[in-house]
């Protein structure tokens, strides 16, 4: 049951004047005075309450402090409230943000602790607790050439700690390599966790990947296309010499066998698409020659275009 306020005890309104309070007190005091009510303990108790209420409200300063909530009805300093024990207490969940932090977040947190929370490798029994160490995840980026032919990379974790990572030839962008035992140490003699390395393959300025093959575009001169030539072509394993057949054209595709993704069993190929560049478009000798040559070699290069 709620405690009565001194105003209620005296039967006055909270905004009563001091005069009204005094009158109310006197009226009640006369009714309840112990000398006038011998042998009535409830009247005596009531009289004490009324006196205490009047004591508080007749003092302007105390009354003001009470109204501000600084002291309670007995005149004692009111303890400073604190929201925190409530917020963290049994009912605090009612003001917890919805959907921002819930059980699944906590489970994510446990997942970050690895499988030590009771997944594979965890074992509890008479001989004590053993758990596999956590897996550690890292990312690294390699270029397309290293991805195509394979490589060994050193991944620095800190100045004193590194992992030697073997990049297998033909690794795909986003592929995860697992280094067994390179994760966190196990608990209670359990085996260590693994290092998981997510490898990204950076796009290359010249080469692009097409399954197990490598594709590139090679600019050639008009003379090389018309007359044929031997030119140097970059590949993932280094430059090679390639023959451009006489009478090649823009769009001609040449294959370099075995120069694609360097898989041990069945390496892919490199496909080179030629792109003929005139080189001297404003050259007067060339123009003079074409003027003589063109009338006898009519051609419509756009006949294959779909009608619009």
């Amino acid at each position, binding site marked *: 049951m*709620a405690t009565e306020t001194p105003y209620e005890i005296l039967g006055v309104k909270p905004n009563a004047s001091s005069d009204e309070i005094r009158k109310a007190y006197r009226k009640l005091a006369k009714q309840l005075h112990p000398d006038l009510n011998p042998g009535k303990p409830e009247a005596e108790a009531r009289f004490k309450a009324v006196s205490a209420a009047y004591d508080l409200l007749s003092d302007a300063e105390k009354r003001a402090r009470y*109204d501000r909530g600084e002291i309670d009805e007995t005149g004692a300093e009111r303890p400073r409230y604190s929201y925190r024990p409530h*917020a*963290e207490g049994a009912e*605090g969940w*009612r*003001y917890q943000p919805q959907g921002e932090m819930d059980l699944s977040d906590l489970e994510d947190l446990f997942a970050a602790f690895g499988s030590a929370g009771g997944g594979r490798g965890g074992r509890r029994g008479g001989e004590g607790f053993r758990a596999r160490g956590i897996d550690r995840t890292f990312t690294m980026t390699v270029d397309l050439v290293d991805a195509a032919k394979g490589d060994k990379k050193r991944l620095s974790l800190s100045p004193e700690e590194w992992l030697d990572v073997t990049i297998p030839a033909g690794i795909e962008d986003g592929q995860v390599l697992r280094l067994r035992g390179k994760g966190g140490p196990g608990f*209670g003699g359990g085996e260590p966790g693994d290092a998981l390395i997510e490898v990204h393959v950076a796009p290359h300025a010249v080469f692009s990947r097409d399954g197990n093959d490598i594709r590139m575009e090679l600019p050639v001169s008009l003379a090389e296309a018309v007359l044929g030539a031997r030119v140097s072509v970059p590949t993932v394993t280094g430059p090679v010499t390639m023959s451009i057949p006489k009478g090649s054209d823009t769009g001609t595709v040449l294959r370099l066998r075995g120069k694609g993704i360097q898989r041990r069993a069945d390496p892919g190929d490199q496909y080179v698409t030629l792109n003929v560049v005139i080189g001297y478009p404003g050259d007067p000798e060339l123009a003079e020659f074409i003027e003589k040559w063109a009338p006898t070699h009519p051609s419509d290069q756009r006949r294959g275009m779909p009608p619009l």
Partner: protein
Amino acid sequence: MIALDELLRRLRGLDRRELIQWVENRWVLPEQSGNTWLFHEVDVARVELIQEIRHEFAVDDEALPIVLDLLDQVYGLRRQLRRLCDALAAQPEEVQQAIRSALPPSR
């Protein structure tokens, strides 16, 4: 649990219309029981908190929801952290030891 009138009686200096506004803003979430509101202890403490932030710290009605939201997030996190700590405290000593030694220094 107390009703609106008892709350107003208990927290003197609280304006009725203001309190109703706070509930309507959903800054305070009393239990709805028929046509009346029932304020739990946590609600009462929250009303006092709002009163203090609003009047003593002079945070206005625009900024107050942000303050409350941040507080709720902090307490939500603390509750979750407490759950986690309780779960850790229930682990065998070896596991606790391992976790303690794996904790990086907090600085």
